[in-house]
Every structure is written in C-alpha cells, then in structure tokens.
C-alpha cells in the first residue's frame, strides 16, 4: 500500500486486509520501535475526536515520528475561509503522511486527489472510518482465531452507525452470519443489507437483545446517538432499548467477546467490565497497533521484528 491513501474500507482487498492485520500483530509484539523517527505525521482534525486522534498520535509517537497538526479547526486557517484543497496541498508539503477527520462526507477522497503524500481517512462525516473497521477486524480475528464463518450480532443504532455499515460490508468478505438487533426505526438500511444478499449470506433481524446473546461469537454493541434524532421524543423512546448486563452473558458461548467502538453511554453496564468476555478496552488498544501498521505500511517502512 506504499504511497496509496486509505479512504474507504472498500478500497482494500481481502489480501490487503490480512496484510495490515498481520503487520499489526508485529506491533502488538513490539509496540515501541523508532522506525519512523525520520518522518512527520500530520494529524488534521477538522472536527473533535478523542480516541481516534490520541490513538493515532500514540501510534506515531511509539514509532518515533514527529507530529504536527491541529485538533480543532477553529485554530486553523479554515476559519479564515481556506478551502480544504488549499489546506491539504499546503500540509502535504510539510509532512510525509496526513491523518484527517472532517465533518463533510467525501472530504478525504478529495484530499487524496490533491495531496502528494498518502492520506488516512480518520472519519469523513457519516461516510467512512476505515481504521475503526480494521481495528474491529483485528479484534475479531484476535479473539476468535479467524475471521471466517463467524456469527456476529450488531446491536443498537444500525441505521446511522457508520462503523456498523463498514463492519457488515467487510465481514461479507468472510462468510459471516449476521444477527441484527435494533429498534424498528433504527434498522440496518436496505443498501447495506444488499451487500449481505449479494454475498449470499444469512442475516436475521431482532428487536430483543436476549434473543441473540447465547448464539453468537461476537456481540458488537453501539451507542444510540442522540444527535441523529430530530425528534427528542423518538430518542427518549429508544435510548435505553438495549442495555447489556453481566448476567445476560451467563449462558453465552465461551468464545463470545463483547465489542464496542466506544464511547459508550449506558448500553454496556459497568458490571460487564470485569467479565473476561468484555473486550472493548483491549479493542481500543488494538487501534494503536492497527494504526502503527498503517503508518509504517503506507510510508514503506518495515517493522524491526518482521
């Protein structure tokens, strides 16, 4: 992937996904290695983010790279009305790779067309967030030993959650069976279901979380996002629809792991945190290894422990 940008999970073949995940394992074995000490990573966050930005910066720091950038567009020349194209063209002169998050959909693709250095999309509005998808895949493979033939439940906001859409589309490459749990008004959009149908895979829709906890390998919880609702009453009706409590996992499969892209609000009760099946904090840590793999791979630098 040297000198290629990463904009959408659709840009990656199955082989390229495996290549990144294998490389991430190397960094999990040896996270601190100063292989990028001669490189500058720009992190341009036109919209705030905690986890994604910090994990990228942690990944870059552990590899010895220098970091430039901003975490809030109000401190940048965007405020003066500079176009995205001009900002990216300028920053591409100052850095070796650009990590960007932007609220407008398609902004990362545009950036990749005007930049001389690779772009990593760290979220473009509700569109794509491929590094989240890769860390989800890494976490699934890590906990199950494989990506193939798994039963995966996706719970919560399946309509607006972009991580859910990307994960479903990615898992379609690996013969998954999908268990979709959501309130009626937050069902998975038909355009995403079409991917499952095109891949001739099975899916079932549920409204009750307890119908799936005992049958799946992965329980992927999501937050129901208040900002998606124009009608506050609608939000109130569904906000507490799915709360996972520890005792609900009593009869779950031994290999089950609970994942969540984080941040959580109340959809996973804190009593689950001590259960060995809770994997969401490790999942957030895996994001660092996956981002180390992407930075080094896209800059064409190999790990010391290859």
């Amino acid at each position, binding site marked *: 992937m040297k000198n290629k940008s990463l904009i959408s999970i659709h840009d990656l073949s199955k082989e390229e996904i495996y290549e990144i995940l294998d490389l991430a394992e190397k960094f999990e074995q040896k996270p601190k290695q100063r292989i990028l000490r001669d490189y500058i990573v720009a992190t341009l966050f036109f919209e705030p983010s905690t986890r994604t930005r910090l994990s990228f910066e942690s990944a870059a720091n552990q590899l010895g790279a220098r970091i430039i950038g901003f975490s809030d567009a109000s401190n940048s020349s965007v405020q003066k009305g500079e176009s995205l194209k001009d900002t990216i063209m300028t920053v591409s002169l100052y850095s070796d790779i650009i990590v960007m998050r932007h609220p407008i*959909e398609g902004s990362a693709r545009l950036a990749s067309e005007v930049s001389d250095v690779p772009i990593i999309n760290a979220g473009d509005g509700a*569109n794509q967030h491929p590094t989240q998808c890769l860390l989800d895949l890494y976490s699934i493979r890590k906990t199950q030993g494989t990506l193939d033939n798994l039963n995966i439940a996706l719970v919560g906001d399946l309509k607006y959650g972009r991580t859910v859409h990307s994960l479903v589309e990615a898992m379609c490459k690996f013969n998954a069976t999908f268990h979709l749990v959501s309130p009626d008004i937050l069902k998975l959009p038909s355009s995403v279901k079409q991917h499952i149908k095109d891949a001739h895979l099975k899916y079932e829709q549920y409204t009750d979380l307890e119908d799936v906890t005992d049958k799946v390998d992965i329980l992927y919880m999501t937050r129901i996002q208040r900002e998606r609702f124009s009608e506050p009453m609608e939000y109130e009706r569904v906000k507490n629809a799915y709360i996972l409590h520890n005792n609900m996992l009593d009869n779950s499969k031994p290999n089950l792991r609970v994942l969540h892209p984080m941040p959580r609000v109340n959809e996973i009760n804190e009593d689950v945190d001590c259960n060995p099946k809770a994997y969401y904090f490790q999942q957030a840590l895996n994001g660092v290894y996956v981002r180390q793999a992407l930075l080094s791979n896209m800059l064409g630098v190999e790990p010391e422990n290859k």
Partner: protein
Amino acid sequence: MNKITQKELKVSAIENGTVIDHIPSDKVFQVIRILGLDKMLNQITFGMNLESKKLGKKGIIKVSNTYFEKDEIRKISIAAPHATLIIIKNFEVIEKKKIDLPDEFEGIVKCFNPKCITNHQKVMQHFKVMDKENLVLQCHYCEKFTKKENIEFL
C-alpha cells in the same frame, strides 16, 4: 429519400441540425432545459406524446443548425437514456446514433447528499453509474447513491 421524411411527419423536417428522437414524453422539457434550448435563438421544434413502437409514447426535439458536443450528449444520456441522436445535413441523415450512459462521468448533476463535499466546496461532481436501467448514480466522493427520482441537473 430517407425513412424519416417518407413517413408522415408530425414535427416538420429540418435542413441542417440535430434531431433528438425517442425521448420519454415527460422528459422533453427537461432535455430542453438542461441543453439551454429555451434560451437558444435557432429554430427549434418539438413534439410530445407522439406514437412510438418502442416507447408507446415518445417525444422528439429538432434543433436547426446545431450539433451537440460530447458534454451535451452526456447530459441527454442522463435525462433520456434511450434517446437517439440524428445528425441532419441538407435534409439527409448523416449519422444516427443511440446514446448510451457512460460508466462514469463528471459534473452535470448534483449529488443528492446535502453533506457531500461537492455541495460544500468547489469540487467537480463525479459519479459512477451503478444501474443503467434504473439510473442509480454513486458519488465518487461521499459514496452515497443518487437515484433517478432525485436527480437534479446543475
């Protein structure tokens, strides 16, 4: 004499210019608008709800002394995917071609997604044609679909 002039013509023949035939009747005014024919000074005649073996009812537009460029033909292909373009010189049919939808094109229509970068910054729209029969476009930038009923010409 060619076929066109042999038949009884509902819309009079032109000496030189272009005939756009087999337009769905309800798309005639849209084609006129997107080609800017409503502001043109050349002689233009058009018909709607004419009988057609292929479409049942069809529309036709005849534009004198005008030959369309690639971009304009592309616009016609999106508004009226099954239209035929007939080039006339001295009352003779010089060329008759079916116009096809391209697999990909730039400009011409607006992305339906209000949050798309092409609706916020100066960026040329760019679409892949996902379904030629039902006319479904996918934005190269935001990856969202614009369907036939939502197409808005620039």
